[in-house]
């Protein structure tokens, strides 16, 4: 291969591997991780691929160390990633918070298995969706994406890196065991066709630089360690200089900006695929692997003459509030399939605000939801059975 980083071509590849290729194509050159089913293949492939590209792979002693190490690497000026599954994701939470508070670009891929606890290590779940939003202490906003195919594992990993650099935030890829382990066609485009967002570097000299003084979009340019800016970075509440400020005013400024830079750029961050929304009587909202079943069910419903539509969430956090609110006012029901006992559906309910009923199609983990189950829910909702 001429271009070792961007393996242009067509592959029959699993999602975990596609995630690696996405990362490498996006410029990731540092990976710290700890094996865990069903994310292990990501670490394994990275351990083979990074040395070919002059990058660093290190298997750390645990997930806490892995998360810390990628934060350090990011400040070292290198795009960095880790991958894990539920138990490791839980362990990473404290340092994901540090990443958010210090505004450190990096990517975490969580290949979800069924929980709680050790659960079903080799089988699928979507039970960490709310954890992605709320798993670390304190209040903050996040960006999380949900791929539903190996191809999306590739595409969304690139997007995750881009968003993380654009908004200086750890971005989470909320994959799942099926997407991770499933082999499917993956097309890797040519390097020139891939959009890459680089780090926004300071334009002022070190003596004028304020590490947390934002540009108009709420995001501050970032000096790397070693660039001569002599930055101080802390997880304490800090002011624009990066210095601790132990008072409610500094706290409000900092937290407002951390939240604002995501909320105010929502429209640029959120992507959904909207199918048949124009005339839909009932709309299925779905993400990740469940979105495939949902799409099939919507097709089947249409085949049976039911005006069903689909909102496929590519971005799961921030949540597309406005879209759901809007659609809820126009349809007879919203339906959400999830491989959990109802997580994102709570947001759908909240945003629907009573404008239409919202039905959950739940599977508690171990396998994916059959399209027929969703189809039945669509039919029932139209009949007003539920």
């Amino acid at each position, binding site marked *: 291969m001429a271009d070792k980083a961007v393996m242009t071509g*067509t*592959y*029959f590849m699993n999602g975990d591997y596609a995630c690696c290729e996405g990362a490498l194509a996006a410029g990731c050159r540092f990976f710290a991780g700890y094996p865990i089913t069903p994310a292990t293949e990501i670490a394994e492939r990275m351990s083979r691929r990074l040395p070919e590209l002059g990058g660093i792979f290190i298997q750390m002693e645990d997930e806490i160390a892995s998360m810390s190490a990628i934060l350090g690497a990011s400040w070292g000026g290198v795009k960095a990633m880790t991958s894990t599954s539920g138990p490791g994701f839980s362990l990473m939470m404290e340092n994901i918070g540090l990443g958010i508070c210090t505004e450190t670009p990096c990517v975490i891929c969580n290949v979800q298995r069924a929980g709680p606890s050790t659960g079903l*290590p*080799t*089988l699928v779940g979507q039970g960490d969706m709310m954890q992605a939003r709320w798993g670390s202490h304190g209040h903050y906003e996040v960006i999380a994406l949900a791929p539903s195919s190996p191809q999306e594992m590739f595409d969304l990993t690139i997007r995750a890196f881009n968003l993380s650099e654009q908004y200086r935030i750890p971005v989470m890829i909320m994959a799942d065991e*099926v997407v991770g*382990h*499933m*082999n*499917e*066609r993956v097309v890797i485009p040519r390097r020139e066709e891939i959009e890459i967002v680089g780090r926004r570097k300071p334009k002022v000299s070190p003596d004028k630089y304020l590490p947390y003084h934002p540009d108009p979009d709420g995001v501050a340019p970032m000096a790397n360690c070693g660039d001569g800016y002599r930055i101080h970075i802390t997880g304490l509440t800090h002011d624009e200089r990066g210095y601790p400020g132990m008072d409610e005013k500094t706290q409000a400024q900092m937290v407002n900006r951390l939240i604002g830079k995501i909320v105010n750029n929502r429209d640029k961050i959120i992507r959904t695929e909207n199918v048949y929304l124009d005339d839909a009587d009932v709309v299925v909202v779905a993400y990740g692997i469940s979105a*495939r*079943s949902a*799409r*099939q069910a919507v097709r089947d419903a249409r085949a049976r003459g039911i005006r069903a539509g689909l909102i496929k969430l590519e971005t799961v956090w921030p949540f597309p509030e406005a879209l759901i609110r809007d659609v809820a006012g126009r349809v007879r029901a919203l339906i959400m399939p999830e491989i959990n006992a109802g997580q994102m559906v709570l947001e759908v309910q909240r945003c629907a605000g009573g404008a239409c009923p919202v039905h959950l199609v739940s599977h508690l983990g171990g*396998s*994916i939801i*059959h*399209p*027929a189950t969703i*189809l039945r829910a669509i039919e029932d909702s139209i009949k007003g059975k539920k």
Partner: protein
Amino acid sequence: MSYTIMNKEKHILITGFGGQGVIMAGDILGTAATLYDGKFATMTQAYGPEARGGACSAQIIISEEEVLFPYVKEPHVLICLSQEGYAKNIGSLREGGMLILDADLIQARKISSDIIAYDIPATRFAEELGNKMMANIVTLGFLAAVYNLVGAEALRKAVQTSVPAPTREMNSRAFERGSEYGKATLKSRAKQGRLARD
């Protein structure tokens, strides 16, 4: 469940123990279909906590169109490399479907007559060729001969690009051995009509 498989999809289920190369066989099938036969394919796997010896399976769907739901519930083709896999899945095989099993490893029950059943001593052949672990490739060779799912050439290519370089030669022999046995079986079947094992 009243759900029907998409028209243009072919569903294949390969079952066995961890370590028999079940997943690899699925991978090769999918690769052949996707890369060398211009089709769509998905391959999902199911396995337990055991690294070796546990029940595992590969589910492959090959289609002219994008595949959405990737599970195989009622396969068109069921390949069994273990007793457990056989016992658990034989009931799911759809009417008129095809069963391929390694008869050295599996004691089959009476098989309903609307099933096309083949038996190949894949493990023994593989062992004879130097490595028991190539039973999967033998089986693929057999499949290529008895069922027109993906082109034999596509499969051959996929085997060559999927196995470790130093073992290509050996695996190629395994594939041909399976393929020949398949052709021979077809011939004898043609004479005898369908087989109903006892």
